[in-house]
């Protein structure tokens, strides 16, 4: 079921067009990646979805209905540039933000207890925000975003400022939220997390969407017909095109190029004929490669 639809959104600022006919569809209960270089228009799009700014034309629909500012209550938004009142205590601050998001004080306290225990940060309750490190503050902000159990979560660069351990915790939390029924949109530069988390993505460049779709399909369609083969001996079959070869502990790892007209099985047969094949895997381009390729191609 479709949760969010953005249709043909245009946003013009003085002197430049931030979004030019952007459309995307987010299915319920999925993680959707919004990619793009800095200044591509991601934040503007997120702000439009959050009703912070209005589009010049086009519309945003939630559950099939045109979004109104009242619907924003159903969204949890963690902006890229996020701050907290430095002089306020952590507990007071999250309670305040939760109440602003429409929760009652007692509901907020209950939910906060759950999250603070989950992250094992009960001791922070009476600390002032200025005493927290960046990563700690990020956790607090994450909690304030998800606390009111919104249907749609929008994270703008959620992992910046986290160390690898905490990044991993956050990834798990995001997937858990999805499993519990939330729909998540997140924008990031970190392509690895995109491969790990996202079902679908949109790549925004220069105010337009230049690439959109399912992550595995995109990767497959960008396949360059290269394969990596593990074998007992070096491959030197007649018409097999080798790209590189290396040997480690008697196992040869060879990267080879397949003729696009050839099937995978035909290639495999040729390999079996000349060596004992231990592994055979297609080398799909990483999202990182696709990102760089797409962006630089359109932006020579």
């Amino acid at each position, binding site marked *: 079921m479709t949760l969010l639809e953005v249709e043909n959104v245009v946003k013009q600022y*003085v002197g430049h067009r931030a979004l030019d006919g952007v459309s995307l569809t987010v299915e319920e209960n999925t993680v959707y990646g919004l990619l793009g270089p800095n200044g591509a228009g991601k934040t503007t799009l997120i*702000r439009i979805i*959050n009703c*912070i*700014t209005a589009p010049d034309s086009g519309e945003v629909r939630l559950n099939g209905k045109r979004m109104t*500012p009242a619907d*924003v*209550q159903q*969204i949890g*938004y*963690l*902006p*890229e*540039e*996020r*701050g*907290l*009142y*430095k*002089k*306020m205590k952590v507990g007071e601050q999250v309670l*305040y*933000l939760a*109440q*602003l*998001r*429409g929760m009652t004080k007692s509901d907020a306290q209950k939910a906060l207890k759950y999250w603070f225990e989950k992250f094992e940060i009960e001791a922070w309750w009476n600390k002032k925000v200025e005493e927290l490190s960046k990563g700690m503050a990020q956790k607090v*902000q994450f909690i*304030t975003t998800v606390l009111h159990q919104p249907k749609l979560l929008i994270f703008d660069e959620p992992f910046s400022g986290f160390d690898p351990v905490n990044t991993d915790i956050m990834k798990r939390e995001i997937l858990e939220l999805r499993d519990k029924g939330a729909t998540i949109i997140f924008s990031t530069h970190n392509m690895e997390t995109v491969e790990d988390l996202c079902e679908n993505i949109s790549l925004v460049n220069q105010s337009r969407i230049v690439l959109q779709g399912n992550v595995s399909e995109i990767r497959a369609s960008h396949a360059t017909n290269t394969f990596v083969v593990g074998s007992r001996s070096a491959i030197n079959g007649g018409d097999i095109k080798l790209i590189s070869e290396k040997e480690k502990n008697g196992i040869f790892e060879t990267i080879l190029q397949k003729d696009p007209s050839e099937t995978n099985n035909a290639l495999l047969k040729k390999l079996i004929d000349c060596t004992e094949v231990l592994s055979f895997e297609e080398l799909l381009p990483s999202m990182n490669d696709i990102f760089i390729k797409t962006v630089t191609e359109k932006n020579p």
Partner: protein
Amino acid sequence: MSKINLIIKREYTTRVMKKSFILLTFLTPVLFAGMIALIVWLGGIKDDKVKSIAVLDRTHLYTHVLKSNDAYSFVFVDAPLEKLKKENAESNQFAGLLYIDADLKDNPRAVTFYSEKQVNMELKTYITGLLNKYVEEQKLAAYNIPHLKEMVEKSHTNIDLKTIKWGEDGKEKVGSAEVALIIGMITAFIIYMFIVIYGAQVMTGVVQEKTNRIVEVMISSVKPVELMMGKIIGIAMVGLTQFLMWVILTGIIAAAVGSVFGSGSLDVNSLQQMQQVGVHPAANVAMPSQMQTLLVALNGLNYFEIIGLFIVYFLGGYLLYASLFAAVGSAVDNETDTQQFSLPIMLPIIFAIYAGIFAAQNPDGPLAFWCSMIPFTSPIVMMVRLPFDVPVWQIILSLTILILSFIGTTWMAGKIYRTGILMYGKKITWTEMWKWLKY
């Protein structure tokens, strides 16, 4: 609880709980009272060291005139002037040397005072007072008219012009221009101070929220206008709290001082001190009646009207300026950039306080009238004029203009704020802000 109430509550409690606020609120009236007490006390201290003044009187006419008192003793000497000066420069025996070389009746300038340090007013008035009185008597005696002295003394009068204002109902009110002036200036100055201090707080608050990127987090759950108004109203309540605390604390301190010294004796004490300082005999006679008019005039002022209108004008002026300060705060990236944009806002406030000072001299003049209508100056100038009894229609007109203007500026500020708080890293110009208004 609605969102704007939450914001107001946060702005209010975080500020009121601050140590600096509590300290300032409680200490200011105490400091103020302490300052007044210090002045009164210092004025009351008598110099217990008797200063001796050498008198070189070539005429020998004034030996009985120059009477020593608690502070000064006159020692009559007879030696050449130069020698005396030289001797005293070494020994420092005398605080000064009074030299009379002719009959003052014929030549009033024939008296000179020599001293190492600048002679103080008290001594100067004391000596001239004594000599004047004596010479006057001598001159009168020279007319050879019996009982002339008594006649002249009886004819001494001191006119005290009582000023009584007509009320609408024909009832008379005793007024005093001085009291009106002081009350007007104090209230005007407090409004000026509150607008500047709390207006600036609104601005720095907005800048901080913007530079700390808190707005980004807030803006998805509250409307920018709510955020701005919540801050402005919250801080207004902080200002009102402080003002009311000052009124209450001043009242408590006044009552405490009154009960310690006994309300009657305080007045008498201060009167006596005034008499001691001002030696001129004619002034003494006038003192009690002046004090009386002062007290009557203080009672004659309509405090409820003044305090009530103070609050209304404070709120109006504050809202007008605070919204502009908020707009400026939202447009800039850091606090140092605020100066360039806050100057045009500060200028009318500073102009208003000067206009207020001029208005005090002519509270019904055209400058006073127009400045109490223009919303940017009216909160301050009208406070100066209020104790001088401003016609009701003028108050209503000025308030209407003020209210309409702050609705206008708040609306404008809201538009600028909405765009400004999410705009980073851009050098903002006036033309840019003008464009935001039209978004």
